[in-house]
């Protein structure tokens, strides 16, 4: 109980003393989410479907493109199009922020042994802590709504991309790194011209993982007021409407499959 007490005190202290900072973050994040949301909700559904199908055709091949097309059409006919787009926007916003923080962290921990030894246990902690627990401080910092949902999602979804970025860079063969140094590369040149390109498939696997975990978390985050498909699922649970819950759940699954197929193939060559 003592540890719990300390954590509570700490979180209280943070909310009391850094409310300005949290407000700033809150404003920034909510405007980012709003911009993304307005784009995806604003677009007519057929344009969005065409866009997704096009990207899938380009990156993931014909069969995945057909799957994408059918999946999105199905979602449209369930009547949860707007909620799906809200969920997608929240995933996109959270994933962007998680990647923007996670990739540099991964690079840092690959290059610096001390950083690595600090970051690793934190990542272990972040990944194994039950996801619901993040919802509590998120509410304390940001109140109810979409932003705390995004906040919890970012924390939950960031570890894979940090780990895989770090792993990817460490796995670049030592002889290539040595050769690059021997030709007079600066550390920046080594990173940009050699380590990142060679680590890219692994980093993109991390990106894929982060996006998938974001999706699973934004559904849970509806418990603290995040909008989207999770809301409907929650409604289904609280009102014991199995049909509603199943329909919205199916939409989540389809969205997940589509996002997975598309992002899984980011790192590989274009398929013809």
């Amino acid at each position, binding site marked *: 109980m003592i540890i719990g007490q300390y954590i509570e005190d700490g979180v209280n202290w943070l909310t009391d003393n850094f409310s300005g900072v949290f407000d700033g973050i809150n404003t920034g994040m909510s405007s980012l989410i709003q911009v993304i949301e307005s784009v995806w909700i604003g677009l007519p559904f057929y344009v969005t479907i065409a866009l997704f199908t096009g990207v899938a055709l380009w990156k993931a091949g014909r069969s995945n493109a057909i799957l994408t097309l059918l999946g999105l059409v199905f979602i449209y006919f369930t009547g949860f199009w707007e909620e799906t787009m809200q969920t997608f926007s929240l995933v996109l916003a959270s994933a962007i922020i998680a990647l923007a923080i996670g990739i540099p962290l991964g690079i840092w921990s690959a290059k610096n042994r001390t950083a690595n030894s600090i970051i690793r246990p934190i990542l272990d902690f972040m990944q194994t802590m039950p996801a619901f627990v993040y919802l509590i401080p998120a509410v304390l910092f940001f109140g109810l709504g979409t932003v705390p949902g995004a906040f919890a999602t970012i924390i939950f979804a960031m570890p894979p991309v940090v780990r895989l970025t770090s792993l990817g860079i460490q796995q670049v*063969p030592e*002889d*290539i790194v*040595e*050769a*690059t*140094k*021997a*030709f*007079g*590369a*600066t550390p920046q*040149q080594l990173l940009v*011209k*050699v380590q990142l*390109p*060679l680590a890219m498939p692994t980093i993109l696997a991390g990106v894929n993982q982060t996006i998938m975990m974001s999706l699973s978390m934004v559904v849970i985050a509806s418990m603290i007021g995040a909008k989207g498909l999770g809301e409907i699922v929650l409604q289904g649970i609280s009102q014991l409407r199995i049909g509603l819950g199943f329909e919205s759940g199916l939409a989540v699954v389809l969205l997940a499959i589509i996002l997975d197929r598309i992002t899984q193939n980011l790192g590989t060559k274009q398929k013809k």
Partner: protein
Amino acid sequence: MEKIKIEKLSLVFGKGKSKALKMLDEGKSKAEILEATGCNVAVRDANLTINEGEIFVIMGLSGSGKSTLLRCINRLIEPTTGKIFVNNDEITRMSDKELLNIRRTELAMVFQHFGLLPHRTVLSNVAFGLELQGINRVDRDKKAEETIELVGLKGYENQKVSELSGGMQQRVGLARGLANAPEVLLMDEAFSALDPLIRSQMQDELLLLQEKMQKTILFITHDLEEAIKLGDRIAIMKDGVIVQVGNSEDIITNPADDYVKSFVENVDRSKIVTAGTIMFEKPKLARLKKDGPAVVLRTMRDIGVTSLPVVRTNRTFLGFVKIEDVVDLKKKEIKTIESIIRDSVMTVNPDTTVEDMLPLLSKTNLPIPVVNEDNHLLGVVTPTSLIAETTGKDTIEIDEIIQKAIAL
């Protein structure tokens, strides 16, 4: 002119280096230092001078510290103590910026496992060094294309390197090194990962290229045959110590210790040892105008031979006289030996290898005369010493074998 100079260079891996260095000064062995401090002495008090335009080979088994020593030259590994000079600039005292610069322009390196960028094409791999220097795309591609042609990869510019064979990949590695127009090439077991046939081909091509380029090449290998083929001079390393430096013939005919000897034992000496090394200098002679049959006969009896080379007074080689002819001549009381000279004798020059002299034995049982370009006699190679050189047995053993054969 000296290009690279290594002075008193030592390299110790591990913690507690200062104690290890002190023990090194006291002359303690590698094993003693390892036991007392836990430090591994990779290179110990290395001193080398490498001249401009030569191929200098450092040879040793794995773990002998040869690759580590090479990496000290461009400071991929920092030496613990000692100095390295390239063009009289002290590498070991350079700032990071100067070091980057010298790596980019003067010291190119070729690696055993190529170290190429698999996601790039041949062209952009070759241009990589120039790219790091910040040279614009047009110029660096032009330079890279020239170099690609030089190593015989024209037409492969746009292939990914991962699609090439090992031999081709190493050509790319070589081209990448050469594209920077460096003065020094550091080649770390550059051909060791290749098939024997390709390896030999690459060695030949390196020698051809070197004739054109006249770079200073520092070549690391564990293969003595390769060292001998490529090296103008060879240094042999053992347990971090340079045991011997010399040209291939020095090392083979005069190994500094048992370690070097064990190395050279299995080498085909007949391809390396030359007439100049095994000939008897200043052999007894018959001089055409001065020595009559009586003198010649006495000389032959004195040293117990049955033939003597004949020279003019200015040492121009004429041929051989045989004892039976001389005896004949003496009976007939002819005063000059001119009529009995056998001049249909093959001569060799000092650079002729044992391998090339062996076939001559089938034509004659006379010693083989060694002459210079003016046909002056420098010495003779006797059949016995030729056989001794090829079989590795000494002359006493050979005599024993002959005696046994006669007894049979």
